[in-house]
């Protein structure tokens, strides 16, 4: 409590830190927090129930969350989860009766290149094969403190497979900032010189939406309101994406350098990094880097010896919510609220964090901005295509020999990436994650660039052994789990899509259901409040268009099939009586 103060904006951070030692949030703690921050108990409960990493019910001593990326599933996470539940007498989603563990699934934790992965009490474990899963079970059964677990379990590989100008550049801390200031002095345009350079570099947002960074910065700089705010979106939640993990682990100085040159250009004094809860394990190192930069005069008052340059950064940690990667939902979450995307207008550049002018950019965008500050726009534009300057980090995972991070100049073809990563017999690539596009074999000559395939960097490869219907079904579950619930089409539509896909999986689908999926997908794209809802139907429409036979071979024969499952309704009775003989079933078993 003391470290966060009593502002209501700190609600999420206080809840998260209160929970860390306890594993959950007892009712009394919630009431105390409500009083201390002077917010209603209903708001506190509302926030707790919004974020999937906050628990109002007791949890096990060890809280195991299996990363549920489609790539984790492809590597066998489903079997590992079942084995672990059996070994520990646990059921997914419920604490075990002895209170030892709670085991559940969570959305992708950003380790797709070394899955199956999971979190134990917030710490990531990688490459969980059957042997390691058994080892983890024994460590928990012997109640070994996490600090004494073998370090090998927690080892995270960088897996950098191809370097370009961003990953190769050994920029020294402060170089970019000094270059930005010097350019302003040389041209006599001061801070505007930084804005001009970013505009000339035609830097487009690296998170996937591709908004022109210079326009965003300039419109924020023009607001006659202070303080202005610089926010780094490190809520890397798009399944299949993990390049920000690398940047935050190995290139933190470059990220902060970019935020600082943004602050210089915009005239901002406050900065935030919104770090996704899954990356909580990076927090201490990031804070150390910030402290070192303060000592070096690169943060705080009088940056780089300029009396007129003050800027500092604090880190807020999320608590399990994909929608918080949407810039305005992220700002709501920074304010300690449920992460609901805002209405626009006004844009965040006008009224963002606490209604102050705010820019929100992706981790990779800030890295690029730091390089532009140092090397200039012309250098930056020498890479990539005329419309997409610079390079892009791709997070490559799925069916390939060498998953990991690949940095390419924009304009690289899908085929080139597939060859580089050792993919064989590829039938599809999901570029940009579930909210991106599903590419079939006839599209592998298309290019990664804003004018062709727009992507935040996820590049998930599927070979001929994969069932694209199941991939679509997996993504349908993802969106239903992550919808914030604000608008009708996304709140209800994503759950209906999930149920329809499950119905088809169960062999109870019909052509009518496929038609309904298409209609709901189109409704979501048109009527949703934010990008999450707009994209939620896309993986289904995409796989249905390219892999329709994978859907159709599951359909029942008639035009309309009822969803109600008479035999399924008896499942509970069977569990209670411990029966599973033919007499305990109704109708034709499929």
């Amino acid at each position, binding site marked *: 409590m003391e470290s966060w103060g009593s502002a209501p904006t700190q609600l999420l951070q206080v809840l998260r830190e209160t929970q860390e030692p306890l594993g959950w949030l007892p009712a009394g703690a919630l*009431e105390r927090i409500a009083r201390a921050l002077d917010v*209603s*108990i*209903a*708001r506190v*409960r*509302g926030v*707790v*129930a*919004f974020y999937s990493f906050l628990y109002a019910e007791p949890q096990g001593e060890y809280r195991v969350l299996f990363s549920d990326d489609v790539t984790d599933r492809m590597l066998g996470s489903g079997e590992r989860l079942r084995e672990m539940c059996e070994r520990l007498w646990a059921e997914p989603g419920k604490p075990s009766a002895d209170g030892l563990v709670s085991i559940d699934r969570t959305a992708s934790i950003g380790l797709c290149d070394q899955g199956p992965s999971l979190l134990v009490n917030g710490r990531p474990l990688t490459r969980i094969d059957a042997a390691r899963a058994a080892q983890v079970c024994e460590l928990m059964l012997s109640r070994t403190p996490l600090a004494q677990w073998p370090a090998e379990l927690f080892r995270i590989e960088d897996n950098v497979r191809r370097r370009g100008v961003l990953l190769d550049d050994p920029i020294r801390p402060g170089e970019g900032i000094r270059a930005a200031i010097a350019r302003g002095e040389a041209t006599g345009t001061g801070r505007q010189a930084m804005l001009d350079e970013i505009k000339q570099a035609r830097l487009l947002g690296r998170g996937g939406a591709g908004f022109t960074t210079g326009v965003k910065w300039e419109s924020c700089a023009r607001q006659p309101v202070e303080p202005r705010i610089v926010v780094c979106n490190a809520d890397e939640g798009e399944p299949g994406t993990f390049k920000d993990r690398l940047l935050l682990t190995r290139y933190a100085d470059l990220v902060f350098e970019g935020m600082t040159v943004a602050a210089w250009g915009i005239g901002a004094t406050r900065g935030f990094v919104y770090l996704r809860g899954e990356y909580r394990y990076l927090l201490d190192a990031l804070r150390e880097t910030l402290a070192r930069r303060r000592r070096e005069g690169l943060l705080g008052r009088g940056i780089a010896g300029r009396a007129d340059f003050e800027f500092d950064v604090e880190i807020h940690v999320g608590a399990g*919510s994909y*929608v918080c990667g949407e810039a305005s939902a992220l700002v709501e979450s920074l304010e300690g609220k*449920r992460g609901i995307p805002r*209405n626009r*207008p006004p844009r965040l550049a006008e009224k963002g964090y606490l209604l102050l002018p705010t820019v929100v950019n992706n981790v990779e965008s800030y890295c690029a901005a730091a390089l532009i500050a140092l090397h200039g726009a012309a250098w930056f534009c020498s890479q990539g295509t005329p419309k997409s300057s610079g390079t892009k980090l791709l997070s490559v995972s799925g069916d390939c020999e060498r998953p990991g991070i690949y940095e390419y100049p924009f304009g690289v073809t899908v085929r080139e990436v597939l060859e580089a990563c050792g993919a064989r017999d590829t039938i599809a690539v999901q570029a940009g994650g579930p909210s991106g596009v599903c590419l079939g074999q006839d599209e592998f000559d298309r290019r990664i660039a804003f004018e062709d395939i727009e992507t935040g960097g996820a590049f998930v490869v599927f070979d001929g052994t994969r069932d694209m219907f199941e991939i679509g079904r997996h993504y349908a579950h993802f969106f*239903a*789990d*992550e*919808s*914030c*619930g*604000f*608008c*009708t*089409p996304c*709140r*209800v*539509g*994503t*759950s*209906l899509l999930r*149920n329809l896909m499950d119905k088809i999986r169960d062999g109870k689908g019909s052509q009518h259901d496929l038609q*309904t999926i298409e*209609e*709901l997908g189109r*409704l979501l794209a*048109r*009527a*949703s*409040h934010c990008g999450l809802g707009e994209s939620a139907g896309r993986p289904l429409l995409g796989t249905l268009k390219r892999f329709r036979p994978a859907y159709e071979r599951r359909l029942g024969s008639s035009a309309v099939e009822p*969803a109600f499952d008479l035999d399924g309704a008896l499942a509970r009775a069977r569990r209670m009586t411990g029966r599973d003989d033919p007499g305990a079933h109704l109708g034709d078993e499929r």
Partner: protein
Amino acid sequence: MSDAESRPSFTLDGVEVPFDPGQTVLQAALAAGQYIPHLCYHPEFKPHGSCKVCTVRTGGHAATSCTTPARAGMVVESETEEVVAERRMLVQLLFVEGNHFCPSCEKSGHCKLQAVAYDLGMTSPRFDHFFPDRPVDASHPEILLDFNRCILCELCVRASAEVDGKQVFALAGRGMGKHLVVNSASGLLRDSAVAATDKAVDVCPVGVILRKRVGFAVPVGQRRFDERPISAQASDYAPRPAPPRDP
């Protein structure tokens, strides 16, 4: 110069709609007596655009008319076959999300969800029902909460915070798990600061928040939307300030 000439305007399905700066498309349309279906919008509150029933087309894109600022020369399409079909689907989604049994509901005939559904020609819920388990809260002596009918429009949340100054209602959870909660230690309405005279008690467009012991005072058949369809009552929803309230 006449009033109409001095004000900027846009067209809604070919009809000229004048507007005041700051008005949204829906507000201007309703003020001009033109109806666009809507549920979460209320004339006394700032629009927030969650139900999406008021979605229209402009410039080739879908737009939420209650939150889209009116601009001079805009061409807005509302009553096209495609847009109406989308709205009908949105209302169907709301019907299957909750538990809506019109024949036994006290709000039947006064209910905006029902009225909008009739108006859009909805003849079936079409999708599979979710049949959620939502216990009622009958703890308060004067007010009943039947969450089964909640469409999550947040009007009671807004009214309690902005007009009553109490924050009796809030939202919790996310996705299909999103639900209305009451601000009290027990979570029950009985222990909250609510009063039967609160704006929040009045504002519910469906049958969630009901006063006890006044049910069916107006017989079904003689109720507001029994007499005239909601689309004929557009000007009732024209923007207006909240009336002054007794301290």
